[in-house]
């Protein structure tokens, strides 16, 4: 037992603690405790009234027993009695017991509150503090109801002792966190804010925690704290290390208060007052300068305190995201820490750099450290540091370094800790998709992923690769070839078999020409894996087999034989048995036509945000992947849930028009186009499920806050269109849906539908951050003569977009006459403090108003000749910039909106199309001929129409597509 025991010792307690420590086993301990509990119970129930000391001792023993992890179900009343003892030491133990063992017994709460009330009004500062500590420790709603009105008064009263003010401030903070509705600052607000000016550093230190919490919830009411905080910070930063006496910690002046001040400032945008802002920037510069000075002490406490302030300052700089100079300095400073010998600093530098990477000002500066970070991933001994390095690589990834980063992450995966593999797999999958310039790289990456870490590849990942392969016809052949090769490995992961089965079932025909991968070879390869697979995978393979029968009639007999075998048709698994029976019947009864229709190639999936992102977000908790947009749908839709692959495929191809460009939603044919709110909206909402509600719910109760904001935004001129806006526009010439634009904050998705000369476009603005966008405002304008050519009406969007939310905007378009330019879409909003101003071209192009026209060969040539004046024709000869795959070309021509006319051109390699452009003023007939030259990898495109401008424009637009 220790020699020191200040105040009064409780001998009985010390003996009991010694006894417990001497117990040799858990059983002995429990026995000793039960003996003590029986003893205490009998003492409390006994006839003899206990004196204060004994009561205190027994209550303290009960507390000790509770803290050892045992249940205590009595003694509360004795503890409450101690609260009103006239001996301080008894009161103190009573409060400690109550603080630790809160009991919501209403009778007791009333008694406790009474005792607290007495102590609060005792005017004895020590008693007042005890009572306040108890409220702060318990923090229950009952206590808030009883004391939330009284404590602010104590906090700001002129005659309250400093120590009581400190306790009162933090007590109030705890009550506010638990029951914000009960803590009303109202009249006290300004006096509380002015505690920042208090002479006593301890009072400021305590009060600022309260002020920070209140400010984050009611920034407007507390905004006067900004200038006070800046001047306080400035005084501390410029003080000598001895000025603040006991508030200096290892030669660092008031580190806790400095950090809290910098934290408070992060509740606000940069100060508007130039002088205040200047002073603050000076502070931040001083803090950055001090980081370069030699340390005043070798103690780790000195450097920790100093760097704590530095990191908090960097957080503020990142929060403002408006001072490029400071951002770059911050990045350089963190760069030094990346190679520091202290593991803690390396960890924090990696973490902090992650946020710097998302600022446009410092993204490039962060990228210069790529080699160091990769090295950290390879050599750090602590898995949590390696995890940070992986996070940072993910954050700094962009088009320029994606291949390097993905390669490094893949090679790290081979040896990565099991605890982080799944997350790494998701990240690699996301980066590979996001920055895939050529999709063969994407397919390689994902297949590598399955090869290296197959167990950690979740459904979302392999659903997604299939989704993408199905939607990108230029990669299908490559995917089939690669997956075929991957399956050659004697042991391959079941996920590889799933992807392989699906892809070969859809696109096996693309490689069937090569005798080494003839239909039967493909089938035998797949079937060799069959018996090693789980039931869901076998089910998927059976669906692949029936698709084979359709793709390759020559495999029919072999596959029927397999389906007919007992192990299939009499399989004990009902699902497998059913599939075998149904597929066998289908293949023997249905005519080739029916079979071909039922087993049609999967239509493209609607473009949507990757469900992998949602998964990663769920894994990391909200906020962790704030860079990314949360998807409306949680699960990949592919395959209807995975285990019933073929069925879903069959159902889908039955339901939709069997054309590769068919609109899955059937919008073209069914949606009524009118000027009012669309009834077709419900169809769309299904796809972007979050869009509807979030668009309507925001804003209403924020009117007061918002009404002042828009003018400041509106006064800013729209930015000129982004340099890539033409390229983005070109992406949508042959399709109507997809992602128009994406940066680190915002994603804009589009769905559109056209009929005759009318169109409707749905824009989906997704906030990819966890912070709300305020003053969100979008405008669509028609520059120059476009004004008289297009009639564009928009509905305004709600000015507030919550973090992670998506809002929808409807745009109605009427084509008055033919046009060339595209309308401009300008988006403005504030993120943090900074104004974002983005202009894009809205992908409304003249071809959207095409009505396809079917006609026979004779008609076509007759009309072609009629349009033989030189200005009616536009022609371009250009090099192919994508593959020249027949199906892709057809899909694009159909996407253009024209009818693709078969058997018209004498040369079967050529394509001819016809359509009529519908404008309000006139209809413009349009004929098209595309002549590919596979050897030279060239095209000749000829357009003829009754209007020279139309011929030229359609020709220009289409030439960019091949």
């Amino acid at each position, binding site marked *: 037992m220790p020699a020191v025991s200040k105040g009064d010792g409780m001998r009985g307690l010390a003996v009991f603690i010694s006894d417990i420590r001497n117990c040799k086993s858990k059983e002995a301990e429990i026995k000793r405790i039960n003996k003590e509990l029986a003893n205490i119970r009998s003492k409390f129930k006994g006839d003899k009234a206990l004196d204060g000391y004994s009561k205190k001792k027994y209550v303290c023993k009960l507390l000790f027993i509770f803290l050892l*992890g045992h249940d205590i179900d009595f003694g509360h009343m004795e503890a409450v009695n101690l609260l009103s003892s006239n001996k*301080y030491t008894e009161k103190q133990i009573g409060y400690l017991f109550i603080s630790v063992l809160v009991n919501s017994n209403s009778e007791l709460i009333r008694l406790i509150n009474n005792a607290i009330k007495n102590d609060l009004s005792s005017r004895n500062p020590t008693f007042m503090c005890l009572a306040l500590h108890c409220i702060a420790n318990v923090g229950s709603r009952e206590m808030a109801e009883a004391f939330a009105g009284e404590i602010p008064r104590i906090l700001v009263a002129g005659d309250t002792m400093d120590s009581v003010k400190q306790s009162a401030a933090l007590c109030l*903070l705890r009550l506010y966190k638990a029951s914000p509705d009960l803590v009303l600052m109202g009249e006290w607000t300004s006096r509380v804010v002015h505690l920042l000016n208090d002479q006593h550093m301890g009072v400021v230190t305590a009060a600022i925690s309260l002020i920070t919490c209140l400010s984050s919830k009611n920034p407007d009411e507390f905004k006067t704290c900004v200038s006070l905080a800046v001047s306080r910070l400035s005084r501390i930063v410029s003080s000598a290390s001895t000025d603040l006496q006991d508030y200096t910690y290892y030669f660092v002046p008031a580190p806790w208060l400095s950090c809290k001040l910098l*934290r408070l400032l*992060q509740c606000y945008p940069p100060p508007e007052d130039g002088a205040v802002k200047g002073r603050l920037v000076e502070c931040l510069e001083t803090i950055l300068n001090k980081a370069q000075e030699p340390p005043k002490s070798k103690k780790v406490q000195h450097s920790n305190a100093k*760097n704590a302030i530095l990191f908090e300052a960097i957080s503020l700089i990142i929060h403002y995201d408006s001072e490029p100079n400071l951002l770059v300095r911050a990045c350089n400073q963190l760069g030094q820490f990346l190679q520091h010998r202290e593991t803690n600093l390396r960890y924090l530098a990696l973490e902090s750099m992650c946020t710097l990477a998302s600022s446009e000002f410092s993204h490039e500066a962060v990228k210069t450290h790529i080699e160091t970070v990769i090295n950290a991933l390879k050599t750090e001994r602590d898995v949590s540091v390696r995890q940070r390095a992986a996070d940072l690589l993910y954050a700094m990834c962009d088009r320029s370094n994606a291949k390097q980063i993905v390669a490094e992450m893949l090679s790290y995966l081979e040896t990565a800790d099991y605890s982080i593999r799944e997350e790494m797999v998701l990240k690699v999958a996301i980066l590979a998709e996001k920055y895939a310039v050529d999709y063969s790289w994407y397919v390689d990456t994902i297949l590598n992923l399955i090869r290296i870490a197959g167990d950690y590849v979740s459904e979302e990942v392999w659903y997604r690769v299939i989704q993408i392969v199905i939607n990108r016809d230029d990669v299908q052949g490559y995917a089939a070839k690669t997956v075929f090769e991957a399956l050659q490995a004697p042991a391959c992961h079941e996920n590889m078999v799933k992807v392989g089965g699906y892809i070969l079932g859809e696109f096996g025909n693309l490689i069937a020409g090569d005798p080494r991968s003839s239909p039967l070879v493909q089938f035998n390869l797949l079937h060799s894996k069959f018996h090693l697979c789980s039931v869901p995978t076998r089910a998927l393979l059976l669906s692949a087999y029936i698709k084979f029968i359709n793709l390759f009639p020559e495999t029919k007999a072999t596959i029927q034989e397999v389906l007919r075998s007992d192990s299939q048709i009499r399989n004990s698994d009902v699902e497998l048995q059913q599939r075998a029976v149904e597929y066998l019947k289908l293949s023997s009864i249905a005519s080739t036509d029916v079979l071909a229709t039922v087993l049609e190639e999967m239509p493209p999936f609607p473009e949507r945000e990757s469900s992998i992102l949602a998964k990663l977000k769920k894994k990391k908790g909200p906020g962790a992947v704030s860079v990314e947009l949360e998807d409306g749908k949680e699960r990949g839709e592919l395959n209807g849930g995975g285990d019933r692959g073929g069925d879903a495929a069959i159902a889908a191809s039955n339901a939709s028009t069997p054309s590769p460009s068919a609109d899955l939603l059937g919008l073209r044919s069914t949606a009524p186009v009118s000027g009012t709110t669309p009834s077709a909206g419900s169809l769309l909402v299904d796809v972007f499920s979050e869009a509807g509600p979030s668009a309507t719910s925001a804003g209403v109760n924020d009117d007061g806050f918002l009404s002042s904001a828009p003018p400041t935004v509106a006064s800013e001129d729209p930015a000129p269109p982004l340099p890539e806006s033409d390229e983005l526009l070109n992406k949508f010439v042959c399709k109507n849906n997809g992602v128009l634009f994406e940066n680190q904050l915002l994603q804009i998705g589009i769905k559109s539908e056209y009929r005759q000369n009318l169109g409707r476009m749905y824009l989906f603005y997704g906030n990819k951050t966890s912070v709300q966008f305020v003053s969100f405002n979008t405008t669509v304008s028609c520059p120059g003569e476009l004004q008289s050519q297009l009639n564009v009406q928009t509905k305004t969007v709600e000015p507030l977009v919550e973090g992670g939310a998506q809002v929808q905007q409807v745009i109605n378009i009427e084509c008055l006459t033919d046009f060339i330019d595209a309308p401009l879409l300008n988006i403005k909003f504030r993120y943090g403090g900074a104004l974002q101003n983005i202009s894009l071209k809205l992908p409304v192009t003249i071809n959207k108003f095409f009505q396809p026209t079917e006609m026979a060969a004779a008609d076509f040539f007759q009309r072609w000749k009629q349009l033989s004046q030189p200005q009616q024709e536009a022609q371009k000869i250009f090099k192919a910039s994508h593959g020249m795959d027949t199906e892709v070309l057809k899909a694009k021509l159909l996407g253009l909106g024209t009818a693709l006319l078969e058997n018209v051109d004498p040369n079967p390699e050529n394509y001819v199309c016809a359509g009529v452009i519908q404008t309000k003023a006139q209809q413009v007939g349009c004929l098209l001929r595309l002549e590919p030259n596979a050897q030279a990898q060239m095209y000749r495109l000829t357009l003829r129409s009754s209007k020279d401008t139309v011929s030229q424009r359609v020709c220009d637009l289409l030439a960019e597509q091949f």
Partner: protein
Amino acid sequence: MQFMLLFSRQGKLRLQKWYVPLSDKERKKISRDLVQTILARKPKMCSFLEWRDLKIVYKRYASLYFCCAVEDQDNELITLEIIHRYVELLDKYFGSVCELDIIFNFEKAYFILDEFLLGGEAQETSKKNVLKAIEQADLLQECTFPV
């Protein structure tokens, strides 16, 4: 700060302070999980780790681990120094503190913590002021007040 735990190398909890409302069962589960996680880490490892949606900051002093759970926006390094200042306060009060002092005088360890941190936030960072408050309370121990 959401909570602070002190535990020995054998995994015995010596002090637990919770600043958010949690049921007894949740507290026990959290303590058990966290003690296991931290004891499994090697000495030279980083003092910070992500744990559920919290940041854990810990440091070992002799036979005792001091461990704080803070929220996402909280500063890890300053939390590390919160721990150090608390150790200094205990050391000054008990005179070269050891684990036994905290076992036998656990109530004092709680009183000192309440003077230093309240509701999970620093109340008074001056070592002198905290110790002065504790000493004053010790002086009052045997005084009787009129009620």
